[in-house]
């Protein structure tokens, strides 16, 4: 078990480095592919008024002439020890962990990320609770009453839920529940939980529900398929032969086995969602990582985009690591592997 954990941890760290290198390479190459030079990149830091000489010096100081691996090395080093950015009119310090320095706001990216993580986390956790509960419950009921009206209604509804994009359902939900009925908050009213839990809940309720509708639709279908498969297994017949109550057969033997594969998908979904529920946060103007990424992309603020991308990758890797470790707890057969 201990070796299993150590091996998974090691793999996760290696994976993070690979992801960071790949991401960095993309962000290094893309501007150059569309014709950017070290000078034009430096211009963004010093402003257009600077003389070409100054720009050249700054580009040099910022390391834009260095080969890609040297720049990647600097970027990694900054995460651990911080970095100084000299953009002509003075040196600005970006303390460790420095995940980049915005040339537009002249601020390090990391503190921004820190203030935005709780927002996205609130959104993701609340939505996940809702979608796991409703998705799994619907899936189980549908599987147990296969072919019934309930089953067909739930599956049709969930097909719609899976198919409709969030920027459509979100907009419709805002229009109906917020602007017409005035049951929920409109976009852009997020309040941190620590300041006012009531306001926090009120602002997040609609985004939670909209996200949950989409995800529970998918989870209902997955749970239903998993349950139907599991209920046909020999060990379900054994459980029944022992005289277990039908509820225990379905839940403790059936659902228990059907949920395990769902854990993997949940890990991926949840990791991705914390990494940036870009569409949801944009639709509901929630100041989370997704909205941050959206704004950074709109403003062409590459260091921010790079920082938030790394953050997203980090969450996906961590979520998968947690799932892998949980798997060993949930499925005893994994422990030997």
């Amino acid at each position, binding site marked *: 078990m201990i070796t299993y954990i150590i091996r998974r941890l090691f793999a996760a760290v290696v994976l993070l480095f690979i992801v960071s290198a790949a991401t960095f390479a993309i962000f290094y190459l893309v501007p150059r592919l569309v014709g950017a030079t070290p000078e034009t990149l430096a211009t963004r830091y010093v402003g257009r008024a600077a003389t070409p000489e100054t720009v050249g010096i700054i580009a040099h100081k910022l390391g834009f002439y260095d080969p890609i691996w040297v720049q990647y090395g600097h970027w990694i080093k900054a995460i651990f020890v911080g970095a100084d950015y000299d953009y002509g009119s003075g040196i600005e310090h970006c303390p460790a962990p420095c995940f980049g320095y915005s040339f537009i706001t002249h601020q390090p990216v990391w503190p921004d990320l820190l203030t935005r993580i709780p927002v996205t986390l609130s959104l993701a956790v609340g939505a996940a609770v809702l979608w796991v509960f409703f998705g799994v419950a619907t899936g189980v009921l549908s599987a147990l009453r296969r072919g019934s009206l309930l089953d067909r209604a739930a599956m049709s509804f969930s097909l719609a839920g899976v198919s409709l994009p969030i920027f459509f359902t979100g907009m419709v939900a805002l229009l109906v529940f917020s602007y017409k009925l005035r049951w929920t908050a409109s976009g852009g009213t997020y309040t941190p939980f620590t300041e006012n839990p009531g306001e926090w809940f009120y602002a997040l309720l609609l985004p939670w529900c909209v996200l949950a509708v989409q995800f529970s639709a998918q989870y209902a279908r997955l749970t239903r398929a998993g349950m139907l498969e599991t209920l046909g297994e*020999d*060990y379900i*017949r*054994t459980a029944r*032969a*022992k*005289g277990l109550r039908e509820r225990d057969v379905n839940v403790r*033997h059936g659902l228990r086995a059907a949920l395990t594969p769902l854990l993997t998908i949940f890990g991926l979904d949840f990791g991705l969602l914390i990494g940036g529920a870009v569409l949801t946060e944009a639709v509901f103007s929630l100041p989370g990582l997704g909205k941050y990424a959206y704004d950074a992309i709109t403003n062409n603020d590459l260091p921010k985009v790079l920082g938030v991308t790394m953050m997203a990758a980090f969450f996906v890797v961590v979520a998968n690591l947690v799932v892998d470790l949980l798997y060993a707890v949930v*499925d*005893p057969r994994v422990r030997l592997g």
Partner: protein
Amino acid sequence: MSEPFLELKNLKISFPTDDGVVRSVDGLSFSLERGKTLGIVGESGSGKSVTSLGILGLHNRRNADVSGEIWLDGDELIRAEPEKVRKLRGNKMAMIFQDPLSSMHPYYSVGHQIVEAYRVHHNVSKKVARKQAVDMLGKVGIPQPDRRVDDYPHQFSGGMRQRAMIAMALVNDPQLLIADEPTTALDVTVQAQILDLMHKLQEEFNSALIIITHDLGVVAELADDVLVMYGGKCIEFGAAATIFERPEHPYTWGLLGSMPRIDRPNLDRLVPIPGLPPSLINLPSGCAFHPRCAYEPRTAGLGRTVPPELVAAGGSKHLVRCHVPTEERQRIWLEEVKPKLEAQ
């Protein structure tokens, strides 16, 4: 004479499907006393497994049509409340399945699964149930049961798993035990041990045992009575000695001929039964076995047209469903089939 412990009367189980009605069990009757063993023999799809699932009420209730009567120790099970049957299941009647790996839940330890089986029917603490599980594992011959009780099924060998299955089935001292192909998935060496174990435990608990198998060797070893099934019907029934010494149904002769026996000189000359088991949706007219039967010409056309009745035959409590006249059947067995089997 008192009522038999288990009695089936004209049991019919059929499944309506899009292609037609599958008549898995079609009018089966037999009875079984405590302490006795019945072997049910037949090819795949002869209805033997559906019969056993039907007794325990484990057939798919939603799409099966069941009629007839199943009496277990004075209780009729087909018309009984499902909740009542559930309380008997695993308690008064238990079942051992064919493949112990797929029949045990991979996520729960062996001990947990036995404890679960015990606690459904006994209101005891987990600790007491666990002790019972350990005792039971020891009884079925698992070494160091107090340690192995926390192992998972995948950590057991095939034979150990079947022992654990038996322990799980026997933990509530069932008076009726049904074993559906209990040794088919096991190595030959382990098969003998498991059969031995089942025999020993049956004597200890004085339970009624039904062994469902296609392996006549297993039946020869354990059964008091033998019931041969074909196309959902009983085609021959009798004491084990009768079935092996003077069988009267051509299908039973075929089964005996296709059984490898070490005491025969030419092991390689097995005689397979020609043809395939019949479709249960569309059984052949007349005797279901007639398309595969070498003696059909001796029935004067009856075999093709009239379904034969189950009637008394030569041995004691011996029943056969065949149109070939009794004396001729006995003569064919003695003069044609038996010498051929012995010469093989």
